[in-house]
């Protein structure tokens, strides 16, 4: 089917991740794949609001943190399964997402981005100071209880959990590209006034997109908390984390389904590689990947705003023209 052929890249990537454990049992390699998939999924979630709806937020860590804290609090205080936490996280994130969605209707471009940063910082302060609820700055260690229901899994199982989520988010993005709602979002993204003139309920569409994005982010936040085992408010609500979700998508190709995952492969591998090479050699050099980060972001945004997928498409178009 010609339609499925468009997804060959995704199939190849996800397929490779799926068979990797058959080729190696190396814990570090598998762990890195889990991280690539998780960061990819988080970026895909961001992409729903930032790429498809054009609402660039630099505060998505708000939802990530909500999901992480929901998991941690539910498992430690209520002794319930993290899946309950996941649902709770989604509920709260939808609420928070609605607030951000409201802001997206009142504020344009850069003002909106600023307000999302402010929002995430408010959550950070609340989480780090409200000791009664969150143990404050000390964070929350997430207990590891073996079992699927408690998400106490080994590396292998985590890989497949992350893979399922990543594929699911990819499919959601594809659905957005092809569905009526997705076309409406595209209209809103390109020219909101024109879209309104055409009868699209642009304000509602934006709120739905942002809320969906928030819920998706929160779910992975819950998974992350269970995987890593420690929730630190200064990390889960941090601005660099929000930037990272957006960055992966931009570098990979914002507004494309595969973009966030390509970006994640590139950035996460680079980060892991530099850390592995430079730790202990010259401390501080491990931070070089962040300098590259910044430089690549500037260059990509200026010269290749469509990211890796854009470059690939251009190369392909040129080669097709050359053949003609």
């Amino acid at each position, binding site marked *: 089917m010609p339609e499925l052929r468009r997804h060959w890249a995704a199939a190849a990537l996800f397929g490779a991740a799926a068979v990797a454990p058959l080729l190696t049992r190396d814990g570090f390699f598998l762990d890195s794949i889990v991280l690539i998939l998780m960061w990819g999924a988080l970026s895909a979630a961001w992409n729903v609001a930032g790429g498809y709806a054009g609402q660039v937020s630099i505060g998505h860590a708000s939802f990530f943190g909500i999901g992480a804290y929901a998991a941690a609090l539910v498992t430690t205080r209520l002794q319930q399964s993290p899946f309950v936490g996941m649902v709770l996280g989604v509920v709260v994130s939808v609420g928070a997402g609605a607030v951000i969605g409201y802001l997206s209707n009142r504020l344009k471009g850069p003002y909106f981005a600023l307000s999302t940063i402010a929002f995430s910082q408010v959550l950070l302060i609340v989480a780090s100071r409200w000791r009664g609820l969150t143990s404050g*700055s000390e*964070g929350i260690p997430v207990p590891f209880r073996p079992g699927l229901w408690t998400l106490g899994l080994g590396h292998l199982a985590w890989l497949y959990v992350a893979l399922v989520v990543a594929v699911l988010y990819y499919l959601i993005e594809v659905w957005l590209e092809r569905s009526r709602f997705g076309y409406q979002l595209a209209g809103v993204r390109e020219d909101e006034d024109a879209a309104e003139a055409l009868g699209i309920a642009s304000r509602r569409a934006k709120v739905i997109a942002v809320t969906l994005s928030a819920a998706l982010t929160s779910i992975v936040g819950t998974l992350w908390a269970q995987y890593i085992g420690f929730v630190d408010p200064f990390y889960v609500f941090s601005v660099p984390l929000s930037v990272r979700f957006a960055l992966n998508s931009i570098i990979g190709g914002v507004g494309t389904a595969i973009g966030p995952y390509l970006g994640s492969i590139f950035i996460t591998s680079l980060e892991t590689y530099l850390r592995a090479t430079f730790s202990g050699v010259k401390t501080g050099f491990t931070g070089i990947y962040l300098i590259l980060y910044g430089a690549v972001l500037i260059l990509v945004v200026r010269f290749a705003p469509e990211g890796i997928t854009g470059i690939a498409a251009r190369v392909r178009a040129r080669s097709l023209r050359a053949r003609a």
Partner: protein
Amino acid sequence: MSRRLLALVVAALSVVAALAAVTHGQSGEYKIGVLEPLTGPLAFEGKRHLEGYEVMRDLINERGGVMGKRLAFAVGDATDPTAAASEANRLITREGVKIITGTYSSTLCGAASEAASRQNVIYWETSCVDPRFAQRGLKNVFRTEIDGTGFGWYNVEFIAKHLSHRFNMKPNQLKIAFLSEDSSYGQGVTEAARKRAKADFGMQEVAAEYYAFASTNDFTPIIVKLKQLNPDIVHHIARGNDAVLFWRQSREQSFNFKALVHAGATGYGSPDFGKALGADGNGPFVLAEPGPGFKVEGLKPDAQKLEHDFTDAIKKRTGAEPYASHRLAGPGLWLLKVVLDQAKSDDLDKFRGAVMSLDIPVGSLINGWGVKFAENGQNANERVQHYMLQWQNGQMVTVWPEEFTTARAKWIPLGAWDSRK
């Protein structure tokens, strides 16, 4: 189509290449993993922690190494909790270590020890103070340093048992104000102190304020408020320049109190405080690792020699006296050597057996500690001797417990600002 495929293959190969390298240790070497925050916000402390480890490693190797082999490190950079877990995995899988040590900070040791536990690797913590660290029922996790509640506990102990009667007041008559930077360290210590002050001694808490230390340039609103509340004791956990700022502004505002007590190697516990204020900084008490006045003679002879060697090596390497991070890492590593030499193996059961069998009296390690581990892997608070230091003439002098030191505490109560010479 083929170009795109090429791009993808290159991407995939780069991933594999990046992650595929494996390093093998040399024979005659015993390698352990050392996980520290070397980049990111905790880097300046993580770096010192690592230095302490490296210096002690060289001293250990001069004294026969570990289990007869040379001790070597595989270092990982734990920038944040995700990195901590990822690097722990790398050290275990790629470097093949069976023991991981580190990680300096409470927010990192949780993630790092989790990652280690899932692969059944021994985790030997020498610094983080999170009280919940040892409460997870993990058999492979051990900590040589006491938990943060211990610091708060000691501070209040000192105030109640050694200061209050010198003001001619009973502990429950004391008015105490708590001020603290808001990281996990500050909150942990302060909350423990608050709890003990109230529950064990009935002290009257007049204020409890947290602040973000790096973005605070003016304590005046707080000081003005505290002046009116008139505390006898200020319990201030500071992290950096905030100590200097608060002390100076208290003087500017003529905010008088009978004593200020802090805990830890940051803020008032940093040599920087003395450098900034000189004799103007006289007076604050700091719960920390021993400083000048410390009777090295109070230590057992082997510990004395090791202490001298350690201090000299740190001075040679960094050009300054050891910071507390050095003094936590060094002895922690030495203790690991002691355990491994006794167990003669890094097999978890034998290792654990050796750990539990240790019963070393106070004064045996180079910082004056003793060792006795509880079932949950925590070195017991009673064996971990902490010291109260006081700033006297630009130096932090050990003033308590008195059997360990030649110096004595001065200016109790503090009196007017210009009268402390």
